């Protein structure tokens, strides 16, 4: 490998100066990592990883349209993702319906987005940023918006936390107990839409899953406690996002490969730890009963 190759991946000269320049991006990354990890716990429990991907493609289309028409990219991204989230939430209450709707929406959104980008006459760097991440090119007022959206998501999640857990685990009993499951599903889809729109800006439409699914999936490998899992997912999201930005700022590459690699390595580590945990758990369970 030539020094140039490694130099483009890792370069820590003038690091202190660069750090000052991207301080806001780091804060945005931290908030996104933490709140995204938390949302991810519900994405996993509600089996909605595919929905996340579908929403992100429509969010991409919205952002691309905004770019083409000179509108606010964050706003365009929000419109696209809320539209997708609402359609999926209203039409797809059953898992099978949901997956087919997402399967239909996703290529349509991606196609629209590519059309808008192809028509866009501006710099090509902006174009692919939407697909693969562009946090370093997001300006300060927009970063403020992104952080604000994350905080709204956080507050809503904390308010609906317990009934949402109930609905995710056992919707039949939750309905019988008077939990407004239908409303909750829609609210959660909107929360998810907001979160996806933010993630698209920072890590790119194609890689949203690395922050909204991988950290929670990793956490679920090593714990089943309803307290530990969300805390770990937030920690993993934080480490992936902030670690990715810190490693990326010196080199000339987008942050996404750093973020996705860190979150993947965390997942790998948790899988290995989970295997060991699984063995001890099974040993404890054997005398208690036979599986039905």
């Amino acid at each position, binding site marked *: 490998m030539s020094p140039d190759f490694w130099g483009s991946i890792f370069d820590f000269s003038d690091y202190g100066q660069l750090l000052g320049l991207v301080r806001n991006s780091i804060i945005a990354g931290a908030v996104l990592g933490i709140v995204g990890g938390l949302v991810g*716990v519900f994405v*996993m*429990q509600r089996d909605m990883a595919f929905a996340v991907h579908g929403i992100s493609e429509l969010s991409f289309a919205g952002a691309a349209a905004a770019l083409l028409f000179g509108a606010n990219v964050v706003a365009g991204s929000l419109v696209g993702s809320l539209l997708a989230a609402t359609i999926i939430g209203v039409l797809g209450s059953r898992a099978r319906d949901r997956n087919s709707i997402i399967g239909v929406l996703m290529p349509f959104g991606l196609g629209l987005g590519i059309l808008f980008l192809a028509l866009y006459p501006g710099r090509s760097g902006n174009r692919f940023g939407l697909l693969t991440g562009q946090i370093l090119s997001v300006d300060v007022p927009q970063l403020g918006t992104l952080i604000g959206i994350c905080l709204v998501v956080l507050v809503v999640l*904390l*308010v*609906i*936390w*317990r*009934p949402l*857990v*109930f609905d995710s*685990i*056992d919707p*039949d*009993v*939750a*309905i*019988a*107990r*008077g*939990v407004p499951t239908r409303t909750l599903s829609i609210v959660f889809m909107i929360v998810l839409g907001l979160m996806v729109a933010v993630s698209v800006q920072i890590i790119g439409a194609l890689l949203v899953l690395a922050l909204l699914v991988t950290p929670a999936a990793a956490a*679920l490998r090593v*714990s*089943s*406690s*309803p307290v530990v*899992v*969300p805390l770990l997912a937030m920690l993993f999201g934080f480490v992936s996002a902030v670690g990715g930005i810190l490693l990326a700022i010196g080199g000339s590459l987008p942050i996404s490969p750093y973020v996705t690699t860190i979150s993947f390595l965390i997942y790998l580590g948790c899988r290995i730890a989970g295997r060991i945990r699984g063995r001890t*758990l*099974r040993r*404890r*369970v054997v005398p*208690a*009963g*036979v*599986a*039905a």
Partner: protein
Amino acid sequence: MLDIRQARLTLGGRDLWSGLDLAVAPGEFVAVLGANGSGQTSLLRAILGQLPLDSGEILLGGRPVRHGDREIGYIPQQRILPAGTALRGRDLVALGLDGHRWGIPWPSRAARDRVDEIIESIGATSYADLPIGVLSGGEQQRLRVGQALASNPSLLLCDEPLSSLDLQHQRGVAELIDTRLHDSGTAVVFVTHDINPVLDMVDTVLYLAGGRFTAGPPEEVLRTEVLSELYGTPVDVIHSGDRVFVAGVPEFSHHEGDAA
């Protein structure tokens, strides 16, 4: 306590049941039997206030049933929770206590003591702290009974709670429910395909078939003449030791699950 009066429910233009009268007293164990599609699950959903009747009324403690009533506990059909579920046994029980409340669950001594007490009463102490996903179907179903009893309901609705459990666990779960009924006077409405695991606990059988019904003590209802008359076609009720089997039941074309 539970009063069903002249209740009629239609589904797709067909009467699931009509003129249904049933009074359930505190501590009474009612088994709801019938072929697939005879409206058993719909009856539970009507009592839960989720499915409006076409006519008649259902009263609980003198008041019309309403959606989300805390007086009603509900145990659904067994659905195994998968290994990646972020919940321990005790958390499943705790949801029955406060799962409907907004916010995040703050740890409180009172709540923990109450959950411990329930877990002990259902004999789940040894596995209450394990991840729910590694527990057997029988263990999960015991925890569901605990969850349903957590709010001290006066009526317990069970929808095939024993299906897919092995015999030993069927007996265990049924006994849990029966104990509760004797200790606290909770009435039980128990939908099942197989009455044998609960036969000695049942006070009243409600047998639904083809839009009609018959109700009474098991020894009066589970007879060849009674059920043949109800089905309008000869069926056999076979007693074998302390078990009873109904043979020759005609199939109904509709499945309520599709519309429910």
